[in-house]
C-alpha cells in the first residue's frame, strides 16, 4: 500500500516535470499542486498546450492516444487525474 502511494507521487512529480519542460512553464514542478485545474484559471493551459503535453506523454509512457472515449477535459482536469490516467494506460 505504501509502495503504491510512493510510486504514484513519484510519477506525479515526473509528469509535472515533463509538463514544465515541455511547455517552458514559469513555475517549478514541485509548485504544481495535484488538484489545481490544468485548463483555464488554474495553470492556464489552453487546448494547444494540452495537445502538446499529450504528445510528449504518449511518447514517454507509450500511451495509445485514441479519440474514442478519451475525455480530455476529465483526464487533464488536474495533475492527479492525469497521473492516474497514465498509471492505468502506460506501456513503458
Amino acid at each position, binding site marked *: 500500500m505504501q509502495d503504491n502511494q510512493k510510486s504514484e507521487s513519484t510519477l506525479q512529480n515526473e509528469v509535472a516535470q515533463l509538463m514544465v519542460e515541455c511547455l517552458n*512553464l514559469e513555475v517549478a514542478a514541485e509548485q504544481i499542486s495535484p488538484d489545481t485545474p490544468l485548463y*483555464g484559471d488554474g495553470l492556464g493551459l489552453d487546448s*494547444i498546450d494540452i495537445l502538446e503535453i499529450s504528445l510528449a506523454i504518449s511518447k514517454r509512457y507509450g500511451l495509445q492516444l485514441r479519440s474514442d472515449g478519451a475525455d*480530455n477535459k476529465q483526464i487533464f482536469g488536474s495533475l492527479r487525474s492525469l497521473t492516474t490516467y497514465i498509471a492505468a494506460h502506460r506501456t513503458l
Partner: protein
Amino acid sequence: MTVHSTLEKASWAAEPERGSLSMLRIMTWCSLKFGRKATRCALYPITAYFLLFSPKSRRASRAYLERAQERPVRWRDLYRHFFSFASTIHDRIYLINRRYDLFDFEIHGEHLLEKDNGLFLIGAHLGSFEAISAIGKKNAGLRVVMLMHEANAQKINAVLSAINPQSNQEIIGLGNLDAMLKVEAKLNKGYAVGMLADRTPGNEACRPVKILNETAHLPTGPFRMAALLKRPVVFMTGLYLGGNRYAIHFDHLADFSVAMPDGRDQAIQDAVNRYAGLLDQYCRKAPYNWFNFFDFWHPESE
C-alpha cells in the same frame, strides 16, 4: 513561454450566429431550386432586414468600417458590408455543390502551395473560405483538412451536410487527445491543414497586435501548432469582389520547417505579427470582406 492574456468571455462564442444560420436555412432551399441569378434578388431585402434589425452587428460594422476606410461611414457602406456577407453565404451553397462554372476566380500566390510534406493554411473570417476550398477541389493536387475547436466543428459539419451531404470536407476537432497525431498524419500525406486564426472560444493564449491602427488580441495557438509540427504556414483569403468575382490570395506567413535562429517563441510572435499585417492589408484593400460582426478590438465590452 507564451503570455496567457485570456479573453474570459469571448462574445462571439456565446452568440450562436443566429443571423447567419437562419439566413442560410432560407437561402439553401430557394437557391438550389431557382438558381443563382433569380435567388440573388432576394439578397437585397434580406440584407435590408438584417441591417435594420441587427443593431449590434450594425454598430460593429460601422466601427470597423470607420477604421478600415478612414472616412465617415454612411448607411450605403453598411449596406454594402452586409450585402457582401449575404452574397458569400449565398454563394457558399453553390460552391459546396461544386458549381464552379458560375464564378470568376482570380488566384494569386498558388505556387506557395506546392509543398510535398504538408503545410498549414491560416485564414480568418475575411472573405469566403468556400471560394478557397473550391480551388482545392478544382486543383486535385491540393487536399485540405480543417482544424477547429470542437463546438465549431460540430456546427460546421451540420451546416455542410445540410447544404450538400456529399461535401466531404474533412474536419478535425481540437477537443480530442489524438488531434495532434491526426494532424501530423495528414501533413505527412501532403495535406494542407486549414485553420481560421482570428477568433478564439476563450481561455486561449493571445498576443496583442495592431490591426487598422488599434490593438487587438490574436490567438497564438495555430502558430504554436505549426511550429511544433515544423511546417510552412501560408495565409489564405478568398475576397469577394462583387458580382460573381472572387480574388483568392495566398501569402507566405512563416516557415517553421527551417531553423529558427531567434528561438521558437520569437518565430511564433513574428508569424502572429505578420498575420495581423496581412489582415490589416486586406481589410483596407477589400473592406466589405471582414465578417467579424462584433467588437473585434474590445470583445470584453460586449
